[in-house]
Each structure stands twice: as structure tokens, then as C-alpha cells.
């Protein structure tokens, strides 16, 4: 439970020596409580007190990382139930299952598809980041060889799946440096898996049927000194899956139940054989708090919607993503190239500039500051009104860079063209298509003459 300033103050030396950079112990305690200072700044707290305060001020859902380098997947660290309260921190890791009983050719094909699943959106690269490697054969040597073959081929966050500690031990020898997630410690194997995880300093998943069993296992592992845990409650149906996720998050945040203060791992494929439905269950789990979502098939048509889903749920609800107001040059525009104008909402900018690029018609794209609002939202909010648009067109200097005086506006704003022509008497206002997808065709027939 987070401590109040006063509770922390009671544990400090109360000498007001000022070495922490703050004049009094009380002031220091207040800063600690609000996260503006760190305990190390005071040299005089005892180890016991430090441990007590550390534990009490630890984030309610343990932040942890699976994997290393570029492909490291961060999980946990969440602090709210609803995204309007504060941005959700770490989007769920999407993991593809591969098993050591699959044919090599199947594995290779799935891996090459997996590598291809990379999409650019609003300037970000979206992709699934994890592989769940399953030791279904139960054979330690076979599993280790399989793991080696996969990790040699691809850089991804790895989840090693086996209920057998001896099988897990062999696989860990191959890839422990990649900080894989060990899946999983059960009631029967908690101690052995716990020791393995400790030895290699890798995160460990806990698998129990139901939250009570999960808590019993995490409790034991916490007692053994393990910290980086991930929870699988093995729900029997979709309804229970939702309930478990909500209860885990809420128990951790509201009641500070430390046995549940961890990111979760989920398996929608265990709840249905239908791949389409599996995707929908995954989309539910993205919104409702899953840490890792392991899916049995990854194709563009199911991964892309899931990545969008995750992007939507995890963007900052308070601040729209925006780009800079200026004249963007696409494809080396010249004095007879078309000029288009739109808003500075990132999504709008990237969609429109992407279409202009794919048209291969060099063009000038004027981006007006609309405080990150989309075209129609900006228009309705008065941030894309004819007078301010005209002012921007004049001051951005585009007139000196082209010979013609034609400006293409978004199709949805057809209604403002008259007014804009009044504000920009030298210009001819052209109404473009409504959807940016129609821009390539439009631009190809555009002419400055």
C-alpha cells in the first residue's frame, strides 16, 4: 500500500540534517510520497526501514521486461482501471505459439510470416513482438534443439512453455541471456521452477486454476524471493476470462493484494477452436488488461486489427498525437506540383501523406496546426476556419515556391470553399475527394494549367 507522507516521516531519523537536499525530514517525506524524491537521497535510513518503504511504495502491478534489446517487451506498471483516468502504460505483448512437435517446414513458414507482420501507422511500427515456444514433446533434448533453431533465426521476446522443470532447464541453457519468460510454475512445480528462474534471473509465469490457486503459488514464490512474476488463472470460458482480468487488476490497484500485483498472460486459443473468434477474444483481452496474449495463428487479417486495437486502447486519451505545422514536401515537389492542405492530427497527417506518397505525384502538403484535431473535428471546433486557414496559407510561404494558385482542400470541407475563396482572392480552391484513399486517382489527373 502506498504510504502517506506522514507515515513515511515516522520512519525517518527526524534529525532535519538537510543532506537529502530538502531542509527537513518532513519535507523529504512529502516529496517521497508524491514521487518527487528517491529514498537513496537520505543516507541515514536503516536497511529495514528502506525495505519497508520500498515495498510499500512499489507500483501495485510489478513492471517487468521480457527479452532484451530492441525487441524487449515491457509489461505491468499499470495504475488505473479506466483509460480516461490516465494513459495505460504498456500494451500487451502479442505472442505466436510454436511447438516442438510441428514440422520444421510449418515452423519456418510461420516464422517467415511472423517477420513480415510489420505495419507502419501514425509514424510508429506496429508488430507482434513475442513467440511462445511450446515443449509439447516432453523431450528435453528435442525442445532445446527446437528453441535453439528458433532463437537463431529470429529476434523476439521468448516465452518457454513446459510444465517439466527438467525440460525447462535444458531450454534455458540455450536462451537464458535473452531473458525469456518461463511458463510456468504450477502448484506441483513451484519450487523447482522458482529455483530455475532465480538461477537464471528470468521472469516466471504462474499457472493455477483460478485465482485462489494462483495466489497460493505466487505467495510461495514471493517467499522464495522471486519478484518478476506473470499470472495465468486458466479461465474456463470467456466470461471467466474477463472476470479474472478485472478482478486481478482491481485487487492489485484497489486492495493492494500483492499476490496478484503482476501482469497476466492469456490464451484465447484455449477458449475456442475458431480462429476468428480467437481474435475477438484477444481483442477483448487487449481492452481488459491482459499483459500477454498468446495466439495460435498470425495472419495479416487477424494481427492487423489486433494491433490497431492495442494502439487505440493504449494511446494517451488526454493528448492527441500531433505533427508540426509546416509545409511538407512529398516526392520532391516543383513549382507546378499540387498543393493540398489538412490538419495536424497525426492520424490525418500520416494517412494523407501516405496516400500522396503512393500516388507518386510529387506534392506540397500544408499542415495547419489544429491542436491535433482531425479535419471535421477541427472544423467543428473552429480550428480549421476559412480565416485562419487563409492566414496560414499566406504566411507559410508556399506562394513563392509555386507558379500556380490552386489549393486542394479535404472533400469533407466542401462547404468552406466559397468562404476560403473570399479570404484568398488570388487562389482557386479545389475540393478534393472525401476519403484520402481516393487521392492517388485524383492527383494523377490533377494539372496546374
Amino acid at each position: 500500500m502506498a504510504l502517506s507522507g506522514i507515515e513515511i516521516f515516522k520512519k525517518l531519523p527526524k534529525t532535519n540534517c538537510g543532506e537529502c537536499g530538502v531542509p527537513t525530514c518532513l519535507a523529504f517525506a512529502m516529496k517521497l510520497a508524491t514521487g518527487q524524491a528517491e529514498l537513496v537521497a537520505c543516507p541515514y535510513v536503516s536497511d529495514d526501514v528502506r525495505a519497508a518503504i520500498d515495498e510499500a511504495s512499489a507500483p501495485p502491478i510489478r513492471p517487468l521486461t521480457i527479452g532484451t534489446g530492441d525487441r524487449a517487451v515491457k509489461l505491468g506498471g499499470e495504475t488505473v482501471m479506466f483509460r480516461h483516468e490516465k494513459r495505460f502504460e504498456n500494451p500487451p505483448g502479442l505472442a505466436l505459439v510454436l511447438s516442438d512437435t510441428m514440422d520444421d517446414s510449418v515452423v519456418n513458414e510461420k516464422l517467415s510470416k511472423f517477420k513480415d507482420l510489420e505495419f507502419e501507422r501514425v509514424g510508429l511500427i506496429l508488430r507482434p513482438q513475442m513467440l511462445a515456444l511450446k515443449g509439447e514433446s516432453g523431450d528435453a533434448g528435442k525442445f532445446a534443439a527446437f528453441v535453439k533453431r528458433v532463437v537463431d533465426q529470429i529476434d523476439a521476446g521468448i516465452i518457454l512453455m513446459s510444465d517439466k522443470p527438467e525440460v525447462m532447464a535444458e531450454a534455458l541453457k540455450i536462451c537464458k541471456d535473452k531473458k525469456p519468460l518461463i511458463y510456468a510454475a504450477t502448484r506441483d512445480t513451484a519450487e523447482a521452477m522458482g529455483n530455475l528462474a532465480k538461477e537464471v534471473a528470468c521472469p516466471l509465469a504462474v499457472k493455477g486454476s483460478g485465482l485462489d490457486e494462483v495466489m497460493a503459488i505466487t505467495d510461495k514464490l514471493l517467499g522464495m524471493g522471486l519478484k518478476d512474476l506473470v499470472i495465468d488463472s486458466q479461465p474456463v470460458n470467456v466470461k471467466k476470462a474477463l472476470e479474472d482480468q478485472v478482478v486481478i487488476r482491481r485487487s492489485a490497484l484497489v486492495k493492494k493484494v500483492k499476490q496478484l500485483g503482476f501482469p497476466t498472460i492469456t490464451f484465447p486459443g484455449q477458449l475456442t477452436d475458431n480462429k476468428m473468434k480467437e481474435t475477438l477474444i484477444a481483442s477483448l483481452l487487449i481492452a481488459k488488461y491482459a499483459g500477454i496474449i498468446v495466439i495460435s495463428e498470425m495472419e495479416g487479417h487477424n494481427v492487423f486489427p489486433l494491433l490497431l486495437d492495442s494502439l487505440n486502447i493504449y494511446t494517451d486519451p488526454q493528448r492527441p498525437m500531433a505533427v508540426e505545422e509546416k509545409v511538407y514536401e512529398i516526392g520532391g515537389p516543383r513549382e507546378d506540383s499540387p498543393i493540398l492542405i489538412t490538419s495536424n492530427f497525426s492520424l490525418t497527417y500520416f494517412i494523407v501523406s501516405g496516400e500522396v506518397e503512393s500516388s507518386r505525384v510529387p506534392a506540397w502538403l500544408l499542415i495547419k496546426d489544429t491542436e491535433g484535431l482531425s479535419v471535421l473535428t477541427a472544423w467543428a471546433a473552429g480550428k480549421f476556419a476559412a480565416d485562419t486557414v487563409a492566414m496560414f496559407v499566406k504566411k507559410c510561404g508556399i506562394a513563392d515556391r509555386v507558379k500556380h494558385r490552386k489549393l486542394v482542400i479535404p472533400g469533407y470541407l466542401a462547404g468552406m470553399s466559397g468562404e476560403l475563396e473570399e479570404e484568398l482572392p488570388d487562389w482557386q480552391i479545389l475540393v478534393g475527394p472525401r476519403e484520402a484513399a481516393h487521392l492517388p486517382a485524383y492527383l494523377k489527373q490533377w494539372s496546374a494549367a
Partner: protein
Amino acid sequence: MALEIPKVSYSGKIKEIVLGKGDKALTVGGETSYPFYLFEGQMSLKPRIAMEVYDSTPEDWPPAALEPFADVVSDPAAWAKKCVDTYGAEMIALQLVSTDPNGENRSAEEAAAVTKKVVEAVDVPIIIWGCNNAEKDTEVLRKIAEDCAGRNLMIGPVTEANYKQIGAVAIGYEHTVIASTPIDINLAKQLNILLGNLGVPDGRILIDPTTGSLGYGLEYCYSVMERIRMAALTQEDERLQFPMVCNLGKEVWKTKEAKQSREEAPKLGDPVKRGVLMEAATAQLLLLAGADILIMRHPEAIGLIKDMLNDLLAA
């Protein structure tokens, strides 16, 4: 070690609203917890799905969306019938796009005639959705309300600009209004207050919080809906305790990625499955945020969502 589930105590309840009339009438609403949180409240009335029917032949639909309706797209009554008979639609949403003054600009009389045919072709509850031009919708919806008196159609979008006129005919001819506001909890509440003041009974109001597609603004809609539900259930905000309608099919299927062919987007997999999943995923998120009525297009996406609803609401 037995976990004691920390429960939210809800003080509010969503109002129950009857849709349509007669044997096939449905009731939505009645929730006493956040959507599907059945461990701490009730959701005894299922969210419902209305299948879209258009008043003019769609021109820019991708093959994936068009294929199931290819034989009926030029006949709204046949289209509605196919939705009900072949695809088991429990509701229909007639989208009056051709009335748009910036488009075909069809008259209120024509729209009413089409509506009449659809209303006569099927016996399930029907939503009538205007072209989102306040003035034109007033004219069109007024005529339809009058012609279909007593049918309890769900008519909208009713906005701040036309609520007086449409509210009045809804009261007079016994229809339900869909109160539409742009993604803003205060505006939603305000419009419901105004409708109440005008005399529209509480049993005849639905909220349209405005819907965007997955990847195209959905996140804002999701959060506003969550906040509306929160205010309704935990802050006793009585003027927000109404079921919500999401008109999502047209938002999803107009996006680029729902339309692209395999050649145009080789990395995006199967175009039919992709479109279906984009629609279904959008619907799934809206359900989690509190939607009670979904207006959807593709029969397969609808099937998936029904399946999910059955799972989520299983006893």
C-alpha cells in the same frame, strides 16, 4: 487463501427501453454493473444487433461487404427481408443516405415511401437513420414518424439542432428517439435533459454517443462511453441512464483497410476475414464500453459478436 473480490457498489441502473412493437419487440438496457461484470451486477437483457439496409444501391462497398447482399442491394424491402429470413436479423437499421442534400437529395416523400415498404416487409424493430443534416433529417423523420404512427420506430440522429421538432413528432406518433451528440458526456447529458423537458418520456430515449472505427477515432468513443456508463451507474447521473446505440458498420467499411484487396494490401491477409474482423473487433470494444444496440453490416461479423455475447452472458 481465499480472495475476496473487491466489488464496485453501483447505485444506478440503466433504464429499460422497448424497441418496436408486437411479438418481435425487444427490450434493451437494465444493466446494474459495468458491461459484462456479472460477478457484481446484472445484465439480464442482451445487447442487440441491427442489420443495416440502405435506401440506395451502395457504390463504394468492397466485395466482402457487398457479396452477402448482392441480390438485394437495389431493393431495400427485399434487403431487409433477406436480413431477417436468411441472416436471422433481430432488428433492422434503415440508413437514409440518399436524402443527403449534398448527395442525391431525395425528398422526404420518397424516403417515407421506402421506409413504409421496409416496415411492411419485416416485423422486427426498425431503426431509421437520417443523413446527419439537421434540417433535412427534421423534414424526413417528421414525415416518416407520421406515416408510421404507432410503430415505435427508433428515429435519429436527433441533435441539439432539431430535437424540438423531432422530439415533438416522436411524442405525438409514439416513436423512440436516438439522441445524438459528438463524443462528449456533457453534451449527451444536456440533450437528454432537453428531450425530457420537451416531454419525451424516459422510456423513449436512446443515446448515440457517436462512433468511430477501429483505427479511426474509436479510442475517443470508447472512453466517452465508459464515462457515460460510469456516471450513470456510480454517480447516479439520472440523465445518462439510457441505453447506447452505435452505428458502426458504415464507419468500419469506409476505412481504407476494410476495402483493400489482396493485391492492394498483400500484407493484410484475407480481405474478407480482415473486414469482418475489423467490424467485429470494433463492435467488441464498443460492447465493452457499454453499447446496447450495435448497427452492423457483415453477417459473419454479426455471427461472431452474437457468439461472444452468448459466452459473455452465459449463466
